[in-house]
């Protein structure tokens, strides 16, 4: 914590500002600000719509101050039987998956950065190959069956645990760290595992936070493995439950099923509410990770 403060103090006091600085700053604030506002529109509308009664939405899609608000959609989402098991499953899958994934990522990426490691190029190439070629659904199903993982949460955790993209970025990041640190430690007689845990890992916090966020979001949003590998509705993750709640089917099928909704709540409203229910928790995680993205943290810390 000490180091963080010092670094930020340095940044604000030591840098002198010239006219070009002000120009750059002005442009930066303008462009990021405008783009951020454009990016805020869909979320704003979704939240707004989720509280707007359907009749008011129909009258005017862009009425930002509807005369009445409603909680009907949220009530329906919460009333749905499998929503809580869905949350539970998703939390377990996301937490376990992200932690295991980060552990595996670090131990897999680190040896690939060491020159004395034989076959590291081959291993990397093998990983790159998997970006393009996969067996498809059927062999993967048979694999999970022979591993005895059908109808378990592991079936939703394991297959997505490590991907080539994250691995390459991780390896690349470790590669960019100064070699001197490792060499010093090796001379001190520390073995590679100790070097990894004591020296490399603390320096990797920004990239771990980044890739951790990617992985977390990936697990949070995943539902397809649940379709493939589970048969019980109580095993469904949140995203699958929500997909089901808002599923409308094709127009032709709606008519075949006679499923026209008699409820006050329209499927549209329900969809909006379900997005809020699914997105807000994951957005709450972000501020906790954000501090790791602060500029200059890492090497400022090393210097101490």
């Amino acid at each position, binding site marked *: 914590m000490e180091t963080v403060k010092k670094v930020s103090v340095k940044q604000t006091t030591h840098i002198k500002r010239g006219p070009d600085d002000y120009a750059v700053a002005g442009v930066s604030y303008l462009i990021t600000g405008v783009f951020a506002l454009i990016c805020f529109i869909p979320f704003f509308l979704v939240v707004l719509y989720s509280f707007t009664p*359907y*009749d008011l939405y*129909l*009258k005017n899609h862009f009425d930002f101050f509807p005369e009445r608000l409603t909680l009907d959609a949220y009530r329906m989402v919460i009333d*749905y*039987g*499998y929503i809580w098991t869905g949350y539970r499953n998703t939390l377990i899958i996301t937490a376990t998956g992200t932690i295991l994934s980060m552990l595996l990522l670090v131990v897999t990426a680190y040896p690939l950065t060491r020159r004395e490691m034989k076959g590291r190029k081959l291993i990397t190439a093998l990983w790159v190959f998997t970006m393009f070629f996969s067996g498809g*659904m*059927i062999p993967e*199903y*048979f694999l999970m*069956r022979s591993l005895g993982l059908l109808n378990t949460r592991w079936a939703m955790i394991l297959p997505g645990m490590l991907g080539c993209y994250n691995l390459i970025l991780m390896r690349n990041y470790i590669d960019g760290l100064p070699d001197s640190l490792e060499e010093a430690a090796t001379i001190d007689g520390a073995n590679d595992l100790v070097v990894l845990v004591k020296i490399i890992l603390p320096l990797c916090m920004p990239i771990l936070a980044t890739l951790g966020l990617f992985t977390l979001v990936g697990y949070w949003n995943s539902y*397809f493995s649940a*379709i*493939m590998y589970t*048969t019980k*509705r109580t095993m*469904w993750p949140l995203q*699958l*439950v929500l*997909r*089901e*709640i808002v*599923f*409308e*089917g*094709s*127009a*032709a*099928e*709606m*008519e*075949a*099923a*006679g*499923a*026209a*909704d*008699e409820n*006050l709540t*329209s499927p*549209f409203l329900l969809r909006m509410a379900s997005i809020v229910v699914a997105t807000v928790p994951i957005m709450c995680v972000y501020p906790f990770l954000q501090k790791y993205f602060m500029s200059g943290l890492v090497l400022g810390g090393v210097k101490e």
Partner: protein
Amino acid sequence: MKRIVSLFLALMMIMSLVSVASAEERVTLTMMNRLPATYVVEGNPVIEALEDLLNVNLEIEAPPISSYSDRRNIVLASGELPDIIYVNDTGASYTQWSRDGLFLDLTPYLNETDMPNAYKVLTAQELNKVTVDGAVYSLPRVQTKPMDIIMYRQDWLDKLGLEVPTTPAEFAEVAKAFTTMDPDGNGVNDTYGWTLNTDKGEHPRHMISGFGVRPSDVPDENGNYELMEASDEYIAYLDWMRDMYAAGAINPEFYLITANNDDELWYAGKMGIRYVNTNVEHYVSDLGSTNWANPDREVAVAAPLMEEGQEKAAVYYPPQTWGNWAINADSENLEAAIKFLDACYTDAVNNLLAFGVEGITYTTFNDEQQYALKTPEQREAFDKYCATYATFNYQTEDKGLLIVNGDTIEETEAFAQANNNVAEKTERISYIQGSSLPGVSEVSTACSDEGLQDTFKELRTKYICGQIEREELVDFLKNTYAPAWQPMLDIYAENNLNK
């Protein structure tokens, strides 16, 4: 700890007793069905009633409805099929699976002794839809009597002094009036007549019936087959659409409409005409719904358009089925599965699955008119325990329409009245679709591989929108599109389809 163990043992004993008692007589059948998210499988009193009625234990797998086909494909490839599987496909995939031998050939059982109920209920035309190489590999879920309807805003018609239209010319007049004469009286011309929704089918039967358009599967009086899209009648229909589009009477961006977006326009009071493919539920739910944005809305229900000078709208209907049921060819309980599936084609099971159990999901049930009256609490239970998705045979020939959504006598009577009016004005012409004839799927595959279907859709939409000239469309239809499909028509002719 001890207490938990003893409790556990006691429970185990009870459970084993129960299972022994029932296992002696009851076979357990596994089943995979496509059920909506709101449907509760575990502890569902309706399923329990069904188990008791047919003396079986059911183990139902209900994969996500939104991804049913993904799960079904994996199950079919896994070699571990349930005894009874809802296939939900009668097209190319189904043909492939049937030929691969995944499903039991039901042809030998479709007689009065083995499957008496299905044999009685299913017509040859309906079975034709699930026949592959002369054998029946699944039973269709049938909707025998749905009727296409067109809904009009009665209050708009009244305001403009117009009548409910019956012919294309009258229809176009009303649609144009809805566009230009400000029927909602808000001082702005912000409404239009109607919108096409190709998600509901490429060519709405409601409209083409007004031009005497004949499906490609049906020959003319001389026994000649003609590709529907290239016929003069169909082009006349497109001319009519183009004329309405130019007048602004069709949603100018109809090509963006998917799923049920057209309903939203209807509810929002943006358009005054809406066509629906089956009136089974929509009319009732339309009346019963809160009339969302337009509390004063009144709705008139009418039959499809009819040709000038005709008394009735002649509408061509292929067999109306919705999904199909197959039995695993390698099932260990073949006999029980056949018996069970057949029993599900009785009215008793059909009513049970569609309406539920008296006292729990309804108060009174009218078998003749097929509706059930419900209190609000029963309605809630009904939404959990019943679904049209759960039925095996949706409707049967000798019964009326299922009126699942009508909860009160007023609602159901209003619906029955509207239904009768439409029925009086509609002449149903049933025909068999040739798509399952051998060789036809190859023709359609070739056409889509060459991109002809895409070009057709593009030119048709461009023509309606006034972006291309008539010659270009007609030239494509007559000289490129029709010849590409000719092999299919030849197959129809060889098989004397619908003669």
